[in-house]
């Protein structure tokens, strides 16, 4: 257990750049594959275009964070242990 933990910790601290590159390369491969692999019959219409689900995932994720954290969060956030009103 200790050696696994050590290896993961080293990876976390030192190899971030390598993992980031691997991640970007994988994303590029997925996009490239989407040019060849398409749905037999598109379910939503737009998903017939290559890269649709990539754009969908990215836009929804970024949009969700921006809307919730920047707009909604300041409005509804309060202390961690709200005083009981009883």
């Amino acid at each position, binding site marked *: 257990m200790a050696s696994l933990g050590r290896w993961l910790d080293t990876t976390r601290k030192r190899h971030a750049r390598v993992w980031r590159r691997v991640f970007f390369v994988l*994303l590029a491969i997925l996009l490239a594959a989407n040019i060849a692999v398409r749905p037999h019959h598109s379910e939503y219409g737009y998903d017939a275009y290559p890269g649709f689900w990539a754009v969908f995932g990215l836009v929804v994720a970024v949009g969700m964070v921006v809307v919730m954290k920047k707009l909604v969060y300041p409005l509804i956030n309060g202390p961690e242990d709200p005083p009981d009103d009883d």
Partner: protein
Amino acid sequence: MTTDFLHPAAWFIASALVIPLLKGRTWWRWLLPLPAVGAFAGVVLAKAGTYGVASYLGQTLVLGRVDRLSLVFAHVFAIQAFIGILYSLHVEEKAHHVASMLYVAGSFGCTFAGDYLTLFVFWELMAVASTFLVWLRRNPVSTRAGFRYFLFHTLGGLFLLAGLLLRYRALGTFEFVPVSQAEANLYDYLVLIGFCVNAAVVPLHAWLPDAYPEATVPGAVFMCAFTTKTAVYVLARAFAGFDLLAVAGTVMAVYGVLYAAIENDARRILSYHIVSQVGYMVAGIGMGTEMTVNGAVSHAYAHILYKGLLFMGAGCLLHAAGTARLSSLGGLVGRLPWVMIFYMVGAVSISGMPFFNGFISKNMTIHGAVEAHRLVLAVFLEVAAVGTFLSVGIKLPYFAFWSKPESTIELARIPPNMYAAMAVAAGLCLAQGVYPRLLYALLPYPVHFEPYTGWTLLQAFMLLGFTGLGFYVMRTVIEPHPGRNLDFDRLYRLAGNGFVSMVCKPVSWLDDLWTEVYRSAGLRGLLRLAAGTRWFDKKGIDTVVDGSAYTVAGIGRASARVQTGNLQDYLAWAAVVGLAVCGLVWWWWG
């Protein structure tokens, strides 16, 4: 009961009765998994049919309606009961084991109930037993959260009770059977509201993210599996095809992920994701086609396993570090590598990553929605899928295990049984993902869905991969901060406090009035009495009456002092004083 079916609840109720009688500190804990093993064997061997028909007060109760729908839920309940018990094996407190056994028994009782009376009894058993799983955390925050949880479930139970009684008056039967939306009456909707409270349907959901993060570490593992999924079962049993549920479920799916995106407490993030995941099930039931109901049931099955695993992982964080707040954690992977690995199995399962069980169940629901031409709902379910991976799959593990300087919190040792339970759950999540037949063979309808094609694999990896890119872009924005977000529970509390003052205001007004009456009539009476005795005293019977005159005047002064401002004191004193005044009046004029 016949030999073909031994009710699984019997194992757990018997255990709950026996546990308090056992002596010694440790040995009996090794026997705790026994009821779960027995229940699982019973479920596997059970043949479809109706068992345990009893007559009580002129009503026919059906304790054991065994069919494919009840069996698939009982199957996973038995497995999760085993995992939960294994996870809590180190707990020495017998009350905790009794509470979890009764809670699981309640869930089995509901699953096999063929009539609303039986259902109601086991439904309430679940509510009471699970409340103890919150209270046994034994701190002021969980005590308050437990009371709120219990009150809200009592309210839900009352809706169910009102519905089933009105239904009985109209139909003359308690039979628990499907209702079609076209013929639904007010009483059906009351029952539906009762079910929706337990299914955490927005806006009746806020008890869940309020109470679950305050439960005991193993208690939350039980709770995340049984309450909402029992509600999913009863919805699937009675209300399949209610269009309202299709929309409500989709709202839940999105609502939960939006809140999870801004939460800080790991177990509260996971709680919001219960709301979201149960949303898929409720939506599937609401659409009501064979594929969507199959999707809902399989998602319930998969969800119980991976959500239990996630709560076990977050529970390990809480157990070891003493907190599950992400803002206080960080970089723990070096010290808790296996917790992270098991947690990640749950995380990729819930996110619908291929080769894990969430993928084969979630996609069935979404695909079913598309086939039912509910495209808008399907798109929102995909939005929820993105949000799920964002919060549970990346944000939570990233800020707990990976990012930031390593947390310097001293970690308590995690007992091996907790690791073992996580290993079992992780193994099942993976096995079902790789061999979908393990799950599909149990579903109520024949399955016409192939989860693994080149396109579905690519679609899933693209969706998850680019959600990851979205997180990477936004990683500094999404960083969790201490704080609690406003949700409907604040509204419940306002309504609750409003109700309390609605009851208390008239009572305290009456009390004020009574005090006034007492002051003007009773006290004056006392003073007059004192004056009378003084006059009597003056007449020369000093030695006899002096003492009593002082006593009566003393009572007058003491009663002026008891106006403490506490409602209970007022009520108690009002009763005492009322009695005393009556006594005096009787003595005076009698």
